[in-house]
């Protein structure tokens, strides 16, 4: 409890305090009032980062749909299914640094993807996948989806296995084909898991850092094309030593995640009343 106090509760108050100061970590903080927040509102990079982080939320519905479909597939009891499940889980466990390097080998200007596309005569010139600002966010989002596939699949799989068999039998008697069976039984049965994944993955999307950092480095891609709020926070706090300003950023992020969670909780409560 003490450790949580020191590393979770205390920091929240500390950050609130720092956000009203100018602080470079080495010399003591100097009170500057609301200066950091005023600067924040006029900071174009902040608004850009905010937009990027919200754009990132697009991965949430994609992940939910793909992972439910995948969970339904791997829930079939056919020989070798455990091996497939294990393979799908590899990206989840292998660590973001290793994954970043692996993908850079593929997406590099001289990398595998370009060699393949050149060989198949789909393109004539190598594409600068990692140096083209328009591709930065979509590529990072693709990586997020790829990394999350196995994890969320497992959660939905666990949910599927809790759905009573009788419901499927009943659906079959009512003349459902296998698609309808899943649409009317599996999908509603996975509601608790969907809420869980929705909350977890949208928080992760808003707080995304690793994927952008490992693919595009500390700068977050050319022309700030991949700068998310957390990446910007990291740059301010740990590269430029603007701990005060970074704290104001952190508070902005906290307000957003809190707003999100309240929205989500309202929605869950409402569903419980209705359903």
């Amino acid at each position, binding site marked *: 409890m003490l450790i949580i106090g020191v590393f979770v509760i205390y920091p929240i108050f500390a950050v609130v305090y720092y956000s009203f100061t100018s602080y470079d970590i080495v010399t003591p903080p100097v009170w500057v009032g609301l200066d950091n927040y005023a600067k924040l509102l006029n900071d174009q990079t902040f608004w850009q980062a905010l937009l990027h982080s919200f754009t990132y939320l697009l991965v949430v519905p994609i992940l939910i749909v793909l992972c439910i479909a995948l969970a339904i*597939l791997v829930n079939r009891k056919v020989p070798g*299914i455990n091996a497939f499940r294990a393979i799908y889980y*590899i990206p989840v466990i292998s660590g*973001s640094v290793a994954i970043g*390097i692996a993908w850079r080998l593929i997406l590099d200007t001289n990398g595998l993807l370009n060699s393949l596309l050149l060989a198949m005569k789909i393109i004539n010139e190598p594409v600068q996948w990692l140096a083209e600002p328009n591709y930065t966010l979509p590529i990072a989002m693709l990586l997020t989806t790829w990394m999350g596939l196995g994890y969320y699949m497992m959660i939905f799989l666990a949910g599927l296995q809790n759905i009573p068999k009788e419901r499927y039998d009943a659906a079959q008697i009512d003349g459902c084909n296998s698609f309808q069976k899943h649409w009317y039984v599996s999908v509603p049965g996975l509601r608790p898991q969907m809420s869980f994944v929705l909350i977890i993955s949208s928080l992760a999307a808003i*707080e995304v850092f690793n994927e952008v950092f490992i693919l595009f480095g500390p700068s977050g891609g050319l022309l700030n094309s991949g700068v998310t709020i957390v990446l910007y926070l990291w740059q301010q706090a740990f590269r430029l030593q603007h701990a005060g300003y970074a704290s104001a950023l952190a508070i902005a992020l906290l307000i957003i995640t809190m707003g999100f969670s309240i929205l989500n909780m309202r929605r869950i409560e409402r569903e419980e009343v209705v359903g």
Partner: protein
Amino acid sequence: MTSSTPLPRKSGGKLRRIAGNTFLYAILTLVAIITAFPFVWVLATSLKGPTDAIYSVPPQLIPHQPTLDNYRRVWDQLPIASFFLNSIVVSVITVAVNLLFTSLAAYPFAKMNFRGRDAIFFLLLATFVVPPQLTQIPSFVMAVNVFHYYDTLFAVIFPSLATVFNIFLLRQAFKAVPNDLIDAARIDSTGELRIWWSILMPVVRPSLATTAIITFGNQWNDFFWPSLMLHTRSKMTLQVGLVALQGMFTSDMRGIAAGVVMTVIPIIIFFLALQRQFERGISGTM
């Protein structure tokens, strides 16, 4: 109609099932290729000799001159063994102490009645919403100015010795244990600590195992915080070391690939060994 009436099966069942299964396997294999291929490519690159092309049109997957030279080169130039040792030390200590602390904290939340219990627990849960990066600014300040453990392994271990998520998981597990067991012990005036250790802990062993695996994996793969704390090469964990390797071997793709393989293989083996336990655990926590 009685419940034992067999369900109507669609006609042409067998042929249809074979066709269906082929289709199923085709999709499963496609997804498997998508998830595993980047790693296969890294493995292939790491085994390629100096005359094998890594960049060519069309791409070449199988090395003509397979060699372990790349591994030797990385091993000689970087203290990979100490990276490993550091990662193991950090992860094992974190798991052991974290589980002890969080299960102790979870017990009162699950099975004891005291004033404000639910309020405190709700407050703890609310910290879920706090972005981890927010807490890292003050944690960094404390590491430098208060604890003076900057650039030591302890700096990586200390902040993760207790986590809200694990308290939550273990509270769920404890809650599922029938109250009768505990009440019987309380009538025999067994102390709460003994109840926790000798009655509850053995019962929730599967949940403890899952929590342990999740914690181990998180700590093993953690990069953000260790990279802020560790700067001396001999003190780095694998993840931080990998980034250092990337910096050292900038254009030596074979070497970088060999480094990646060396760090990923152990964790994959670890997971495969515990897959059963892990799957059971996830269904237990939801």
